[in-house]
């Protein structure tokens, strides 16, 4: 069965410092992996995805993520955090063998302090 784990409920980082939001997954076959961000009272916005190819994926707003097959991880990173990055971040996995059903992680709240 597919599953996604975001082990941290909350991540705190100072503005200008690098940030990492962790995600690990379990899926049969080759995963499609996504990161989304949700601001208060808004829908989710797509940040980036990995389907195949280069393990380092670059996305919107300076975010990037690294696919690590051996560790079944897809951590979200940004070299220099902004206060405006404060939001709820969701990792999601979709497996072609699972009818393309998307499973979302529980979300990680990112606080960036000025």
């Amino acid at each position, binding site marked *: 069965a597919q599953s996604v784990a975001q082990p941290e409920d909350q991540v705190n980082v100072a503005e200008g410092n690098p940030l990492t939001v962790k995600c690990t997954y379990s899926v049969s076959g080759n995963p*499609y992996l*996504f990161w*989304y961000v*949700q601001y208060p*009272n*808004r*829908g*989710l*916005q*797509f940040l980036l*995805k990995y*389907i195949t190819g280069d393990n380092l994926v670059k996305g919107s707003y300076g975010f990037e993520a690294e696919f690590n097959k051996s560790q079944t991880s897809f951590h979200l990173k940004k070299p220099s955090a902004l206060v405006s990055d404060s939001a*709820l971040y*969701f990792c999601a996995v*979709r497996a*072609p063998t699972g*009818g*393309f*059903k*998307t*499973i*979302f992680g*529980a*979300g990680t709240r990112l606080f960036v302090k000025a």
Partner: protein
Amino acid sequence: DTAVSQTPKYLVTQMGNDKSIKCEQNLGHDTMYWYKQDSKKFLKIMFSYNNKELIINETVPNRFSPKSPDKAHLNLHINSLELGDSAVYFCASSQDLGSEAFFGQGTRLTVV
């Protein structure tokens, strides 16, 4: 020119009522979804349609019935509303089954 739009944005209703939420996308996508986000922000797929065909139907009470009159619309009808149905319901669409989803702004349903 909102990409995925849902109406209404807020819905407050009494237990036992029947209500509908409408969703439209103008992105030309083939696939549409309904998700439920609970008070703890957990997000769960409810239904997925691809080219108007139901392809994912999660363990959802049969009081919930999706309807897709065409590829651009996916409505959600809920019968006999219960307190536990209170949540934010998101409509989303994607170009195909493997692509990223574009979400609407959500409908906050409160059952009293």
